[in-house]
């Protein structure tokens, strides 16, 4: 305990208390109004750096989610047109099976040859399926239709991988030369259809029957491709769920790191304000009291 308490000392002590109290209140006020515990690195440098890192993770996660959405759109457009191709090939096979029967005459076959030509046109249109002006079966040559009217492929075999997570990629396209062109073992679907059309035009029953087996193979190739697309879509779906979870957890962590505990902050604020009120009242008392001087007449 001090043995002497001069006037300046009393006043300074009271003033310092008020100054510290005011600083605390300003800080709590800023925390409550922004909802953030960390106003500057000085409040919690580690938390500050951590919040920044977590936001970087969130930015990347959002981008991966956007990549997944886009890949999903492309794959589902591909899937839809592969389903239509299956229908076309099924109809072509029906014609082939029917016309392999010698009971039909040349006139009927000529009409059906015309029907097959329609199917070829439909296949070409499906092979040229596009999304937002990009041809989905053209490989890297995505800016031009990969098939001409005769079904000749002008795309390439470029497989496009997209990032859907850190170090995780998924192929978002299948190329026409593989599942329609039969590159790497298989039949050329357009060739098979053209053969059928020509055989019908020529009224050649044997040639018509010869297209049945390759027609099966062609249908299998398209179905195979559709399954591949389906697998990739389900991989995307799985990963989307993973990303959602990562995002949720990251936001949770972020909130724990930088959000203010409102109940705590408000009760602190009330307490500090009471203390400050008392300090102010004390100072007023001290300054008002003066000294013995005022009792000397």
């Amino acid at each position, binding site marked *: 305990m001090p043995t002497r308490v001069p006037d300046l000392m009393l006043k300074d002590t009271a003033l310092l208390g008020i100054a510290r109290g005011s600083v605390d209140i300003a800080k709590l006020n800023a925390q409550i109004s922004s909802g953030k515990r960390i106003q500057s*690195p000085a409040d919690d440098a*580690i938390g500050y750096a951590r919040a920044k890192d977590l936001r970087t993770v969130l930015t*990347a996660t959002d981008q991966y989610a956007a990549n997944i959405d886009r890949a999903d759109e492309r794959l589902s457009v591909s899937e839809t047109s592969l389903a239509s191709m299956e229908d076309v090939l099924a109809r072509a096979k029906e014609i082939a099976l029917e016309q392999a029967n010698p009971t039909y005459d040349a006139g009927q076959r000529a009409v059906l040859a015309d029907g097959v030509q329609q199917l070829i046109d439909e296949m070409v249109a499906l092979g040229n399926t596009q999304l937002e002006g990009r041809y989905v079966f053209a490989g890297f040559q995505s800016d031009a239709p990969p098939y001409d009217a005769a079904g000749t492929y002008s795309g390439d075999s470029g497989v496009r991988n997209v990032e859907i997570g850190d170090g995780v990629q998924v192929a978002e396209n299948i190329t026409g030369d593989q599942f329609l062109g039969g590159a790497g073992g298989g039949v050329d679907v357009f060739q098979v259809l053209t053969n059928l059309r020509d055989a019908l035009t020529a009224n050649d029953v044997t040639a018509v029957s010869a297209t049945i087996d390759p027609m099966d193979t062609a249908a299998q190739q398209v179905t195979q491709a559709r399954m591949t697309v389906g697998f990739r879509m389900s991989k995307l779906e799985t990963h989307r769920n993973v990303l959602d979870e990562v995002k949720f957890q990251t936001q949770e962590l972020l909130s724990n790191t930088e959000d203010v505990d409102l109940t705590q902050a408000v009760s602190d604020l009330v307490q500090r304000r009471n203390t400050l009120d008392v300090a102010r009242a004390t100072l007023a008392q001290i300054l008002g009291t003066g000294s013995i001087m005022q009792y000397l007449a």
Partner: protein
Amino acid sequence: MDLGRQGIAASRAGMEVVGRNISNASDPDYTRQEIFFENPLQGGVRTWTVRSQVDAFIESRLASENQNQGRLEVERRLMGEVSSVFGTTESGLSTSMADFFAAVSGLSSSPESNESRANLLYQADALVGEFQREAGTLRSLSSEIGKEMGTTLERANQIARDIAKLNVSIGGSAAADGATGQLIDQRTALVKQLGGLIDVNSFEDGNGNVTVFVGGGVPLVEGANAYTLELAPAQGFDPYAGVQVTTPGGTKNDITSRISGGEIGGLMRIRDQVMGPAMDDLDRVAAALVQKFNQVHAQGYGLDGSTGQDFFDPLTASVVGAGSNTGGADVSAAILDPTALTLDDYEVVFTSAGQFDVLNATQGTTVSTGNAYTSGMTLDVDGVRLTLSDATGGPQAGDRYLVSTVRDQSLNIAAALTDPNAVAAASTAAGVPGDNANALALSDIDGTKLLDGGTLTLSEKVSRVGAQVGLEQQSVEQAYAAQSYIMEGLNSRRAEVSSVSLDEEAAKLIQFQNVFQASARLIRLSDELLQTIINMVQ
């Protein structure tokens, strides 16, 4: 009657002291005075002395803690500014970097799309802008620190001159008496104030003169003489000034390395130990990004068929001579092969006028020693070609030059591409709009540990820089808070001993008034007695 006369004089002196104490009661530097009477054996008050009530131990603690206080006040203010450069948790370089690499990933997801290409260029501009903003703000802050050091030294010089003047006024009288006591108070306050600006220590000699040393042993005030503090020219590769003391004879004494306290100490510490490393780190991040991104980008093809293009403006090599160089040689550097760069700093050190060594300053290794110097020669070091030649003269032994491909990169970084179609997303050949292989390779850069000897990615390093500054700010804030309690404690202990209590003074005033009245009564009584005796005789 003589006793009465002495009493009146003594109480007058006492009241004068009380008066002085009361009128200075609100001056925090004022030291209360007390009067002490000496009674000779024969009775009566013969003499009195006035003494300032000082606790020498507290005064010297206050003077040295004031150096910490001055340093911490400056450090706290500067750290607030420095850390705000790195943004909130939702802004700053790490955010721009994340957005930029998200745009790269977006490009890989749709390389045909003009929007994703344009977005990448937009994000690159934002990233470059953020680099330049942070680097630029740090640089202008450090040049402001230089100016502030100048004005602070000017203030210190003014104080030193005032102390010297007070030494003269106080003169040879060591004994504090009345008004002299106030001059001593003033001088003590000035020495304390000076300590708030720069490291000082002082002592009072037998003649009442205060001698002030700065930077632990270099005299600044000796008796009536005050020497001059001024900015010292930079010695190293950074353009930062130090501090020197100049005697009237013109002798300059560099004390930079001895200053650690006061405002000057704080200014230099934040500039050299916080901002310097932060600027270096940002430069390193920018340089690593430019080198790697350009290297991968140049391998790809744009929609317009372009290839081998830089995405960012290429790195440049810079050479700085040390401030202490005495020779007149010129060393310049140019980059031969950007992919061969190590991003390390190299030093060319002349061991004599005709020979030099090349050191890798970052790794602390020697590249080559004893190279013979001829003017106009070239030397290739890790993708950089050095050209050494005589300029205003030849080199001198001890001359040093810093060769860097990193320095100021965070300030100089700029996006080189303006045409979205030139962004090289494809890796196979020109004219394949759907090819995203090179975009994927660019996106991989984000996850590649390019910095700190292959331990940190670009983003990790950026967040590390911010965290380090934040930790520094936190520790300064804590030290400042602790210091304010120390100062509060010392100030109230000083006040306890030296500050004026109006209650005490009031009591003394009454006491002296009583003595005065009693002494006057004594004189009157003696006079009456004398009259009685005189009347008796008549």
